């Protein structure tokens, strides 16, 4: 798997036996890799140099050789490994061919530098993750009060919920809503009973003259068919309220807005 065509900086002391063993170990462990970047980082270690001085070209070669070998051994590689292989093949051609002045886009060097940065950053994160896990940890190195004291005096129930509860509850409601059976959806007809049931509590607050159209239910104003039905039903319902002496109605001239207000029983 080490590529004989490519010089390996600092890697000259790797005997072919070691290399073969390493290659086999990689094949066996392919499931253990966490994605192409992880594999690249492992491959880069065979170069035995500081990640900042790594040969990205050699690394690309190593990766492509690895993918070829996996194919030969009929190991099913996940799509992202193949995407990375395609990208590295592209990068390799960019690095080997003289730059085409007409070609726009990033240079091979920039792309290689970014890959080196990504590898360095991933390794740095792994280092600090290990350092973090090695710190004095609660319950292992330092300890909290073992016997919390509580004086049983005030017994108060406190209700609580976690953020997960909250988010899951919301998801539950909203996804349920999406699948509301179609038949339950309201048709374009608002019945007078519905309009009356709606208007009755609303009118109780309206001491001032208010345009009838303001009482149309939400979502019924835009669609003309729904609007007509809602307007008719609401108008009929308002007449019913007037008849019962609960409201007053007026229209200043023909086609002017119809206005409605609460009628106080004491008036």
């Amino acid at each position, binding site marked *: 798997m080490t590529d004989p065509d490519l010089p390996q900086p600092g890697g000259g002391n790797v005997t072919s036996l070691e290399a073969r063993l390493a290659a086999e170990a990689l094949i066996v462990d392919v499931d253990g890799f966490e994605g192409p970047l992880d594999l690249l980082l492992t491959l880069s270690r065979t170069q035995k140099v500081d990640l900042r001085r790594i040969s990205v070209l050699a690394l690309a070669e190593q990766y492509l050789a690895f993918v070829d070998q996996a194919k030969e051994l009929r190991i099913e590689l996940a799509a992202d490994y193949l995407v990375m292989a395609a990208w590295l093949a592209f990068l390799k051609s960019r690095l080997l061919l003289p730059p085409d002045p007409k070609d726009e886009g990033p240079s091979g060097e920039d792309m290689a530098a970014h890959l080196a940065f990504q590898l360095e950053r991933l390794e740095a994160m792994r280092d600090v993750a290990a350092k973090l896990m090695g710190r004095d940890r609660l319950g292992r190195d330092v*300890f909290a009060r073992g016997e919390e004291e509580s*004086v*049983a005096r*005030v017994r108060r129930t406190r*209700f609580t919920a976690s953020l*997960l509860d909250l988010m*899951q509850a919301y998801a539950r*409601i909203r*996804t349920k809503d999406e*699948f509301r059976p179609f038949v339950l959806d309201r048709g374009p007809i608002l019945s007078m009973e519905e309009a009356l049931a709606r208007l009755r509590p609303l009118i109780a607050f309206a001491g001032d003259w208010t345009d009838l159209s303001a009482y149309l239910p939400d979502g019924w104003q835009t669609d003309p068919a729904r609007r007509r039905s809602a307007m008719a039903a609401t108008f009929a319902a308002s007449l019913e309220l007037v008849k019962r002496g609960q409201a007053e109605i007026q229209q200043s001239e023909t086609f002017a807005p119809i206005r409605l207000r609460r009628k106080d029983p004491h008036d």
Partner: protein
Amino acid sequence: MTDRDGPSDRDASLFAAPPLGEQERMVEAVLFASASPVSLKELFGRLPHGSDPAAAVENLQRRYDGRGVRLVKIGDAYAFRTAPDLAFLMSRETVETRKLSRAAIETLAIIAYHQPVTRAEIEEIRGVGVSRGTIDQLLEMDWIRLGRRRMTPGRPVTFVVTETFLDHFSLESARDLPGLKELRAAGLLDNRPPPGAEPPEPSENDTQSELFDPPPPEGEPAP
């Protein structure tokens, strides 16, 4: 009891007991971290060979004399206890926590995601009525409060979440709550019941698991 092992003792010279001050620190840490009172015999077993826990306990007891906590003897064991005159400070420790009901958590979620939201809107989103007690409970917990009245006929009151709510859920603002798509992407939207909750009715569970295959529905503003 203080000088059991003379310097002639071979073990003691090989594995010299730590100085008494150090033993005192050790006893202090062990008693502090232990979930129940610790006997002298147990301390003897846990401290380095040749230690004298009785002397260490005695010194410690003097050190904590008059402090906010005391080293007290319970039976033949020792433990730290709050000084009796400060017991009044501890009364808050005894709260019993209970999970919020499903109706309450759903109502709360709708308020958090759609605030300011009216009661009618909550009912519309939940698809069932919201009992007065649920709103009252959330108000009493100081997780929701009244917002501006909606400028629509009837001028219904709206509900919004409070600072206390944000505090409890460690949120900087309600806007930071993830949307449905994000919930799904984060793997939070699955049909596993939330920890501690009773499993949802099977019928609903079935519907839900089917919901995750079609393109994710968007959260849409309440009407």
